[in-house]
C-alpha cells in the first residue's frame, strides 16, 4: 500500500489539509500592496476614543511618550509629506519616531492589528484598527480630523506618508550574491602607524552595569578582581 511513497515531497500519514476557517483565523498579515487587508473603515474621532482608552496609558496622549517605548508621533513636517522623505533623518540624532520611519501604511495597520494593545494583542475589531491608525495619522498631520480611513482610500494615504520614499534595498545585506559595502585588508605588519584612542567608556557609565567583578568567574584568567595577593608580578 505504501509502495513508492517515499519519493520527494510525499510523506504518507503526515499533516492534513488546512480548512478555510483555519486559514482565515490565522492569515492576518497585510502586505504593502494591501493583500490581506480586510474591508472596513474607521474615523479619526473613533480612533481617538480607542487611543485614549487603550493606548495612551503607554504611548502618551499624543503618541509622544518615551516611557514604555519610543514616541510614535513627531518629527515629520508638511514638506516631508510632500517629498516623501523625512528630512530630519539626514541630520538628526538617534531619536526616531514611528511616523518618521514609516514607509508603508500597511505596516502600521498590520502591526496594531496583530500586536496592540501590548497586553491584549488581537483584541481590537477591524473598525478599531482602521480608526486608531487614522488617529495616529491625524496626530502626525497626515490626515485631517474628519478623516475616515478605509480599505478604499488607504492606497491614497500611502502616497502621503512622510517617509514613503525613505527606504532602499540596494545594499549588500539582503542578497547573498550582492557585494559588501565596507572593505578591509588583511595587512599583517606595520599596518596602523599611529594608533589613536578614539573612545573609552565615559566616567559616568562606569557603574551603569553594576558590579562587573561579580559578573566574572571567580577563577581563571577572566576574573573580575585580581587575587588577594596583589597586582601583576
Amino acid at each position, binding site marked *: 500500500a505504501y509502495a513508492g511513497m517515499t519519493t520527494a515531497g510525499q510523506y504518507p500519514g503526515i499533516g492534513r489539509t488546512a480548512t478555510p476557517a483555519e486559514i482565515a483565523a490565522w492569515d492576518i498579515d497585510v*502586505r504593502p500592496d494591501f493583500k490581506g487587508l480586510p474591508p472596513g473603515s474607521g474615523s479619526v474621532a473613533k480612533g481617538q476614543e480607542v487611543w485614549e482608552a487603550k493606548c495612551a496609558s503607554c504611548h502618551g496622549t499624543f503618541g509622544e511618550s518615551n516611557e514604555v517605548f519610543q514616541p510614535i508621533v513627531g518629527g515629520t513636517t508638511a514638506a516631508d509629506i510632500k517629498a516623501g522623505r523625512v528630512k530630519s533623518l539626514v541630520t538628526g540624532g538617534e531619536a526616531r519616531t514611528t511616523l518618521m520611519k514609516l514607509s508603508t501604511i500597511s505596516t502600521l495597520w498590520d502591526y496594531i492589528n496583530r500586536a496592540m494593545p501590548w497586553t491584549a494583542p488581537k483584541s481590537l475589531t477591524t473598525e478599531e484598527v482602521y480608526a486608531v491608525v487614522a488617529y495616529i495619522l491625524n496626530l502626525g498631520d497626515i490626515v485631517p480630523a474628519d478623516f475616515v480611513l478605509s480599505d478604499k482610500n488607504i492606497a491614497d494615504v500611502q502616497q502621503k506618508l512622510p517617509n514613503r520614499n525613505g527606504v532602499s534595498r540596494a545594499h549588500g545585506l539582503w542578497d547573498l550574491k550582492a557585494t559588501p559595502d565596507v572593505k*578591509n585588508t*588583511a595587512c599583517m605588519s606595520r599596518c596602523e602607524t599611529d594608533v589613536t584612542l*578614539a*573612545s573609552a*567608556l565615559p566616567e559616568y557609565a562606569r557603574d551603569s*552595569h*553594576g558590579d562587573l567583578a561579580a*559578573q566574572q568567574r571567580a577563577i581563571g584568567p577572566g576574573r573580575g578582581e585580581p587575587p588577594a595577593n596583589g597586582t*601583576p608580578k
Partner: protein
Amino acid sequence: GTAIAQPLRGSDFKGESEILELPEHTKGLGQPVAARGYGSPSQFEQNLQRRESPGLTRVSAASVSFAPLQALFGIITPNGLHFERHHQGWWDIDPSKHRLMVMGMVKQPKVYTMDDLMRLPSVSRMHFIECGANTGMEWGNVAVPTVQYTHGMLSCCEYTGVLLSTLLDDCGFDRKNGKFILAEGADGSSMTRTISMDRALDDVMVAWAMNGEMLRPENGYPIRLVAPGLQGVSWVKWLRRIEVGDQPWATKDETLHYVDLMPDGVHRQYSSIQECKSVITTPSGGQTILDKGFHNVTGLAWSGRGRIKRVDVSFDGGRNWRTARLENPEMPKCLRRFNIDWVWNGAPAILQSRAIDETGYVQPKINQLRAVRGSRSIYHNNAIQSWKVAETGEVSNVQVY
C-alpha cells in the same frame, strides 16, 4: 579571594595547606547518582547569568538579555545562558496543542502537529544566532563595559529539525511565483519576518531541538525558525505559520526596526545578513589580568556568509598581527573558537581580533564602517573590537584607529 600558585618560596616552605591537608571530599562519601535527575551548574558558577543592559529598553518583556560570553568556552552556548530577545514576553507553550500551518501560494495548505513534524526527515546542524542589533550600542562611541554587553546577543547551538524546503515541497509550493516566505510566531507580537525563497530553500530549518534537547521556552519551544546567517529576529520563535507569497511583507520589524539608517537619511530595508565578525572574549572588558607572563588569548569568530577561514590577532592596536589557531569543526554559519599565545610583559597593550570568511571578506575597523554607514545605523556593527590592557592588568573597552 583565590590563591595563585606562587613560585617556590624559601626552603622553609613546606607546601600549601590545600595539598598537605586532604580536603573533605578526598576523605568522605559524596552524593549519589541521579541526586539531580536534571542537573545544574556548580554553586561556584553563579556569577555567570544572562543579564539585561540597564537603560537599553524600557520594559523587560520587549527587551534583550545578554549571554555572558566572557565566561563561555568553545562554540556551544549552554541552553540556560542562551541570549534572549522577546517583543511581547515568552511563554511555555503546550506542544500537544501547538500547530504549524503552511499556506499561501501552495497546492495544498497544510496543518502539522508536533507529532507530524517530528516524523519528517530531520537534520542536525550547528549554527550561530546573532541579533542584528548586537554591538549596536557602540556605533557612536564606547557605551558598555564588558563583552557580555558589547557582543552578548550571540549564541550557537546544534539545532535539530526539518528543512523548510521539506515542508514547502510537501505542500507543493508555487516554484515559479513563490519568491518569498513569511514566518509568523504564536506569541502576542506574532512576530513576522520575510525570507527570500532562495534562502528558505537553502538551509532554513523548522527546529524543535537545541543542543540535544527540546528548545527552551525562552527560545521558542516547541518550534522556531533557524535561518542560518540571518539576524536573530528572522529566527521566528513559537512558529505557527509559514505563508508563501510573491512579495516581501514590510512587517513592523522590517520597516520600523531592523532597518539601518545611512548618512543620507535613507533606511536600508531587509538588511539581514550578519557579516563576518569576531571578538576576543578573554581577556575582555571588566576583567583583570592576574599576572605578567604567559596567557592564552581566546575568542569567537563567525560569518553569515559561510565558514571562518582565518583570524588574526593584534596586541598593539592594529600595528601588527599574528594568525590565531582555529578550533574545529569548521562549519558554515557557525561560531569558530580561536586561541593564540601571548606573553604579557606588564606594559599597556591593545588587543584586537580580525576574522576572514570563505568569501575573502575581512572584518572591518569601526572607522571603515562609519565612513560608509555613519554612526546611526544601530544594526550590523561588525567592527573589530579593541580591548585595552592597563599596567594594572585592568582590561577596558576602547575604540582606536
